[in-house]
C-alpha cells in the first residue's frame, strides 16, 4: 500500500497549491463574473521574482539559513504580484466593466500573453533552477516518504486558507466582498466602495498566487516563464470542479484535482499495461474539466453559475 499512501501525500501537496491558485480565479469570478486568465501568469511572476531574490541572496550571503532566504523571496514576490494584479485590474479590466463579457475575457488572455513575454524578456527562455537552500529532510511514513518542503507547503497552504475563510466570514472587508458578489449595485447603494472591494479582491488573489508560485518552484525545483499557463489552466479546472465563484469549492476542487492527478499518474502505467506512462499526468485535469462541464456545469459546490439576465 505504500504507493497508495505516497500518491495520497503527493496529491494533497499538489492539490493545496492548486487550491491557492484556484481561489484567485474563483474570488474574481464571484465578484466580477470574469475569468481572469492572467492569474496563472501572476503565479509565474511570483515564482520568478522570488527565485531572483533567492538566487541573489544565496550568492551574496551563502551562510544565511534557507528558510530566511525563502522568506525574503516571498516578502518581495507578494507585493510585486499584488501591484501587478492591481495594475491589471485598473488598466485592463476596469475600463471594460460594462462591456460585453467576451471583451474582458479576451483582454485577460491578451494580458497573460503579455506577461509571459515580459517574463521571457527578463528571465530568458531557460529553466531557472531553485537554489539548494532548503532543508532536504525526508521522513518515512508507513513506507511512503514526505519531505520537509512538502510538509511546509501543506501547513502553509492550510493556514492561508483558514485565514482567508475567517477573513471573508468575519471581517468588514469580507462582508463587503460577499455583499458585492451578490449585488454590486446594492452594495454600492449601501455605502460600499465597490471599486475598492474589487481591487482588494485582486490584491488578495495575487498574494495567494505569489505564495503558490513560490511553492511550486520550491517543490519542482525550477521555474520557467511558461509555467503559469498550465498551472493556471489546472487551477481554473479546479475552480470549475468545485463550483466557480465558491471559495470552499475552489479549495475542495484544488485538493481533488491534485489527488486525481497524483493517483492517475501513479496508476496509469499499471492500468494500461505500460502503454501510457506518468508523463500523461497533465491529461487528467482536462478530463476532469470536460467531465464537469458536461455533467455538472455548476461544479460540486456551486449553485450560482446561472447566467444573469
Amino acid at each position, binding site marked *: 500500500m505504500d504507493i497508495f499512501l505516497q500518491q495520497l501525500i503527493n496529491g494533497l501537496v499538489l492539490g493545496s497549491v492548486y487550491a491557492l491558485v484556484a481561489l484567485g480565479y474563483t474570488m474574481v469570478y464571484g465578484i466580477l463574473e470574469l475569468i481572469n486568465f492572467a492569474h496563472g501568469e501572476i503565479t509565474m511572476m511570483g515564482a520568478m521574482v522570488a527565485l531572483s531574490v533567492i538566487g541573489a541572496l544565496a550568492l551574496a550571503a551563502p551562510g544565511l539559513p534557507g528558510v530566511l532566504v525563502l522568506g525574503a523571496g516571498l516578502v518581495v514576490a507578494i507585493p510585486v504580484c499584488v501591484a501587478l494584479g492591481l495594475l491589471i485590474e485598473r488598466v485592463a479590466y476596469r475600463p471594460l466593466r460594462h462591456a460585453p463579457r467576451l471583451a474582458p475575457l479576451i483582454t485577460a488572455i491578451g494580458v497573460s500573453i503579455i506577461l509571459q513575454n515580459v517574463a521571457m524578456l527578463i528571465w530568458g527562455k531557460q529553466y531557472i533552477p531553485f537554489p539548494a537552500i532548503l532543508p532536504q529532510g525526508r521522513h518515512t511514513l508507513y513506507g511512503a516518504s514526505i519531505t520537509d518542503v512538502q510538509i511546509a507547503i501543506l501547513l502553509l497552504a492550510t493556514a492561508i486558507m483558514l*485565514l482567508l475563510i475567517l*477573513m471573508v466570514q*468575519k*471581517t*468588514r*472587508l469580507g*462582508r*463587503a466582498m*460577499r*455583499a458585492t458578489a*451578490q*449585488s454590486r*449595485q*446594492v*452594495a*454600492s*447603494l*449601501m*455605502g*460600499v*466602495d*465597490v471599486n475598492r472591494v474589487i481591487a*482588494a479582491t485582486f490584491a488578495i488573489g495575487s498574494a495567494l498566487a505569489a505564495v503558490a508560485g513560490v511553492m511550486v518552484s520550491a517543490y519542482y525545483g525550477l521555474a520557467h516563464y511558461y509555467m503559469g499557463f498550465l498551472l493556471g489552466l489546472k487551477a481554473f479546472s479546479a475552480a470549475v470542479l468545485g463550483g466557480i465563484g465558491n471559495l470552499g469549492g475552489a479549495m475542495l476542487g484544488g485538493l481533488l484535482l491534485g489527488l486525481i492527478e497524483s493517483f492517475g499518474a501513479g496508476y496509469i502505467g499499471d492500468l494500461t499495461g505500460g502503454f501510457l506512462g506518468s508523463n500523461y499526468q497533465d491529461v487528467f485535469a482536462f478530463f476532469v474539466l470536460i467531465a464537469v462541464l458536461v455533467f455538472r456545469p455548476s461544479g460540486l459546490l456551486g449553485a450560482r453559475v446561472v447566467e444573469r439576465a
Partner: protein
Amino acid sequence: MSAPKAAPSPSGKLDAGSTPLLTVSGVSKAFGGLQALSDISLQVHTGEIFGLIGPNGAGKTTLFNALTGLYSINHGEIRLYGRRIDGRKPHQVLHAGLARTFQNIRLFAEMTALENVLVGRHARTTSGVVGAVLRLPGTRREEADSRERSHALLKRVGIAQHAHRLAKNLPYGDQRRLEIARALATEPRLLALDEPAAGMNPAERAALRELLLQLQADGLTLLLIEHDVKLVMGLCTRLAVLDYGVKIAEGTPDVVSRDPKVIAAYLGDETL
C-alpha cells in the same frame, strides 16, 4: 430605543428649520426619447415625512435612482444640506447621508439578517483587514460596536429573533423591515423608502406606520414613495405628485387631495 446617531451637521446654522435638507432643482432625466423626469424641483425639510406619489410610471423610482446616484441626471442639481450630490457615486451619496430601500426587495439574500445590517455599517466604520488579522483592539472594539448597533436596529424594527437566519428565508414583511434596518445602519439624515408597505397586510402596515412615526420622532427625515393613499395621507407632512415625469402638485395632504390635476391623474380626465 435609541435613535441611530445621525452624523453631526456640518455647521450649526443648518439646524435652523429654514434650510432644506434636500433640494432638488430643475432635475431632468431622459432615456433615449423618453423624458422620464422633466424639470422636477422640490424641497424636503428636516424632520418631515415627505411623500412622493403618482400613477405607475410617473417617474417616482426614477427620481429615487437619480437622488441616490444610480442614474446621472441630464439637467438640474441635487443638494443635501446644501452640498451637491448629483454626479456622485452611490456610495458617496450614502456617505453624505442619504440611504434608501427598494421597491422590489434587494437584500443580500445569502447573508444573515445581522450581516445585512452589518454591511450597512460599512460606510460608518473604517477598520481594515490588517487590523482584523492582528486582532488590534481598535478593530475589535469597532466590530463589537457594529454588532451591538446592528442587533439594536434589528430589535428596533422588530425582527431581532431572525438575526441569524439568511435574509432570503425571512417572511416577506420582515424582509421589508430588514431593508429599513440595513438603511438605518448607515446613519442617514434622509431615509428614502420606495413603497415600504407594498405587499404588506393591514397589521404589518399598521406596524410600519408606527415605526415610521417613531423614526420621525427621533429626528430622522423621511422621503416616501407609496401607493397606499390612506397611509400616505395619514403619515406625510407634505406631498409632491408626479405624473409622466412632471410634478403636477405639491403641498399638504389636504391641499393635494383636492387638487383637480391630481384627481385627474389618478382617476382619468373624464371625471373632471
